[in-house]
């Protein structure tokens, strides 16, 4: 089954050749560019019925920020789609039209990684406080706890 | 003059009622706890709670109307204590009576709900507002079956005086069995009046904190709690006078013990109901009262009318 999905994916999207791996049964990791991301997502949902979004993981990889979308389907096969964007301008598209449940995961990326999510509706932020200093994203590697302490100390 | 003040303030007035209400609260809490497999409080717990609350700081919300906020518990307490004077306790005679006092008692027992409404409403808390609106909504649902249940017994006795009702059932000792249906209906309606589960909707802790009582604290809260407990005692005494007028021996000590047993049995039933059911929703409560309780109360009324017809013949 995993092989089948991988072969079909490569057939449909040539650029995936070499960017797709299967470390163990029921796990597929792949990398796509941001421009083709929604196409791959569409394809997986339509043809392979990947209807459940587990979560979105953010990663700080130095130059780039990467986001991994963990999708699964009945039967337990889990596909991890990694999308990378430059750190200076980390813009991604919201996937709320595909998964309503994605909203809170995307808010988390906004707060903790400073991602800019296009199409994310207005709403309460999650999970940081409303008075969190602007421009500080705690899960980025260059963020240190002292930055927050200093900032808060100045305010006090 | 002095004896009147004594009977109002001490026995069987306010002080006696307060002691009885602490006893009632203790019994209620202990039974509730034992039925739930807990140990429950020691006998002095209600008194200790009361004293502790008296010593706590009193906070009145700055938005609230302080006069209304403070007066509401007083009105409530005054009206339930007054109602108590018209209820025959262990003798067939109440402290005061006149023809029509049954209606006065019923209306006096409505005043606490209204004054809690006023107190809660003027405390301006959102939870209190929802709670008080709920308690008024609920009032219109339980009041009708409660009145019908109690009046069915009065109808059989052919009098509007509680004292006369008691005298009637002393003469006809077995007729109280006719009113058992009315007793059950009134007891359920009383749960609504006392805001006990399943009808504790106005103070549903998990939804609206404490409903109308949310903003009360310190002495005012202590007084409120006391009033609620007194209300429970008065309600139970009313039911026992109207529906359980048996075993009067004219030996005042024995009669007093029997009265206590009756009172505590009713409290036991209230605690039992509290233990075995979940809280209803306000719409379900109103449906229940109008769909089931009111028709049943009507049947009781018709039954009593029929019995009365037979008796006159």
């Amino acid at each position, binding site marked *: 089954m995993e092989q089948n999905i991988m072969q079909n994916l490569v057939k449909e999207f040539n650029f995936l050749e070499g960017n797709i791996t299967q470390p163990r049964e029921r*796990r597929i*990791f792949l990398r796509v560019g941001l421009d083709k991301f929604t196409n791959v997502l569409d394809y997986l949902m339509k043809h392979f019925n990947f*209807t*459940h*979004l*587990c*979560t979105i*993981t953010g*990663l700080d990889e130095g130059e780039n920020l990467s986001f*991994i979308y*963990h999708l*699964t389907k*009945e039967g*337990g096969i*889990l596909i*991890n789609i990694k999308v990378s964007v430059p750190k200076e301008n980390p813009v991604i598209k919201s996937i709320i039209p595909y998964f*309503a*449940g*994605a909203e*809170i*995961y995307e808010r988390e990326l906004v707060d903790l990684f400073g991602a800019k999510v296009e199409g994310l509706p207005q*709403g*309460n932020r*999650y*999970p*940081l*406080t409303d008075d969190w200093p602007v421009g500080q994203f*705690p*899960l980025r590697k260059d*963020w240190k*706890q002292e930055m*927050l302490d200093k900032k*808060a*100390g100045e305010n*006090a | 003059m002095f004896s009147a003040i004594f009977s109002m303030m001490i026995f069987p007035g306010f002080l006696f009622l307060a002691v009885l209400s602490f006893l009632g609260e203790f019994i209620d809490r202990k039974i509730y706890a034992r039925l*739930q*497999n807990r140990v429950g409080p020691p006998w002095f717990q209600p008194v200790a709670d009361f004293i502790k609350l008296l010593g706590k700081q009193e906070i009145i919300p700055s938005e609230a109307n302080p006069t209304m906020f403070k007066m509401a518990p007083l009105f409530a307490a005054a009206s339930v204590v007054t109602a108590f004077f018209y209820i025959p306790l262990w003798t067939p005679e109440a402290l005061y009576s006149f023809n029509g006092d049954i209606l006065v008692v019923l209306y006096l027992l409505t005043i606490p709900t209204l004054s809690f409404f006023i107190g809660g409403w003027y405390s301006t808390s*959102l939870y209190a507002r*929802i709670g008080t*609106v*709920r308690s008024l*909504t609920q009032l219109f649902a339980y009041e009708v079956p409660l009145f019908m249940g109690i009046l069915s017994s009065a109808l059989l006795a052919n009098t509007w005086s509680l004292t006369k009702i008691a005298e009637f059932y002393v003469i006809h000792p077995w007729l109280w069995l006719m009113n058992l249906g009315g007793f059950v209906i009134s007891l359920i309606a009383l749960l609504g009046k006392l805001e006990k*589960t*399943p009808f504790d*909707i106005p103070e*549903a*802790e*998990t*939804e*609206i*904190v404490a409903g109308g009582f949310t903003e009360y604290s310190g002495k005012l809260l202590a007084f409120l709690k006391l009033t609620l407990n007194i209300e429970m005692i008065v309600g139970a005494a009313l039911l026992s006078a109207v529906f359980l007028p048996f075993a009067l021996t004219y030996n005042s000590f024995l009669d007093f013990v029997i009265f206590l047993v009756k009172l505590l049995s009713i409290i036991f039933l209230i605690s039992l109901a509290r233990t075995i*059911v*979940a*809280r*209803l*929703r*306000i*719409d*379900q409560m*109103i449906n229940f009262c109008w769909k089931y309780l009111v028709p049943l109360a009507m049947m009781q009324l018709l039954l009593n009318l029929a019995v009365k017809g037979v008796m006159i013949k």
Partner: protein
Amino acid sequence: MHNSSEEFKIPIGPQHPALKEPESFSVALRGEKILGVEIRLGYNHRGIEKACEERTYIQDMYLIERVCGICSHSHSTCFVQAVEEIAGLAVPRRALYIRTLVAELERIHSHLLWLGVAGHEIGFDTLLMYTWRDREIVMDILAELTGNRVNYGINTIGGVRRDISSIQIQETLKAMDLLEERTKYYIELGLGETTLIKRLSGVGVLSYDDALHFDAVGPTARASGVKRDVRKDDPYASYGEISFDVITDTGADVYARTIVRLKELMEAYKIVRQCLKNLPDGPITVRAPRKIPVGEALSRYEAPRGEDVHYVKSNGTERPERVKVRAPTLANVQAVKHMLKDRFLADMPIVIAAIDPCFSCTDRLVSLEQDNRGQENLMTWQALHDYSIKWHSKRGVDFGKLNKKLQERLSKY
């Protein structure tokens, strides 16, 4: 009922009797009817994910266990599984069985806890008292097996830390019999008690399509007919070798969720018995390297509340590059808004409770180990003591006299 056209908002939380944890729901009401709900999470954000990056794998394991007080084993197992997958460790079968055993015991304790909380939310405190009393049985067993009532600390990278003896097996089996009998009583109660059914059925409806749409997990999804259970879909530990049923229901309301959880309790007893019966012999742990090779893994685990997801990325050192935790409540909380729309305020607590929320799990991340903000706010015990004496003497309380009296009294003895 109340046709007042006045709309108002009431806050449910961050401090509210219906929620035992700090989360805020702002409810727009018209009379008793809920027009809309705004959810604000994050009050319990402790920065565990960031803290994990600064600690070693073994330290992280203990830290991760403290993500949640109830499903602690779920989180630690889920994390450990990911690390073991990256390191390529073959965990001994006996260890896997013990993990499964503790996992199911944890499910039992969590579901019993939920049942009590649900009872409390609808004003049925007797149910709370009964279930929590019975919950003590399983808590005792957990303490007996692992040494702790919560945060069991049974896992280690490459296996488990404690073996179980035959006496413990006998005791656990006895406890299971007792619990099964009690659970049967609760099922009977759930199917028979009118006010319970009245309050639970038709409330908090989440249709099959909506459950898929909002990515609901765990009993919440299963009560809507979605057959989603990681134990079956993506077997971990020893679930592949154990027979059990995935409980689903088509009721899609809170009542269905209650029934699903009750039936899952029965399944849990079955699994525990099988684990104990088939417990293989052998070692309980393999040696794990201190430095985990470069790699990434995604681990899933069926916690009592639903699917728990951990993503771990390693960089070849003894500290992980990234740890991501997605607790089941975060997946379910988004469906709550939908479930509450146009319902009554009275249903709010039970609908929230019905997903079995665990907000501590949900919020993790940015810890402040040493709060340096405003030195004057950090007080030593002595300073606090002095301050209180100063505060009171300013208001006329003379401690000198009191102290003297105390000394006199003490000198008598």
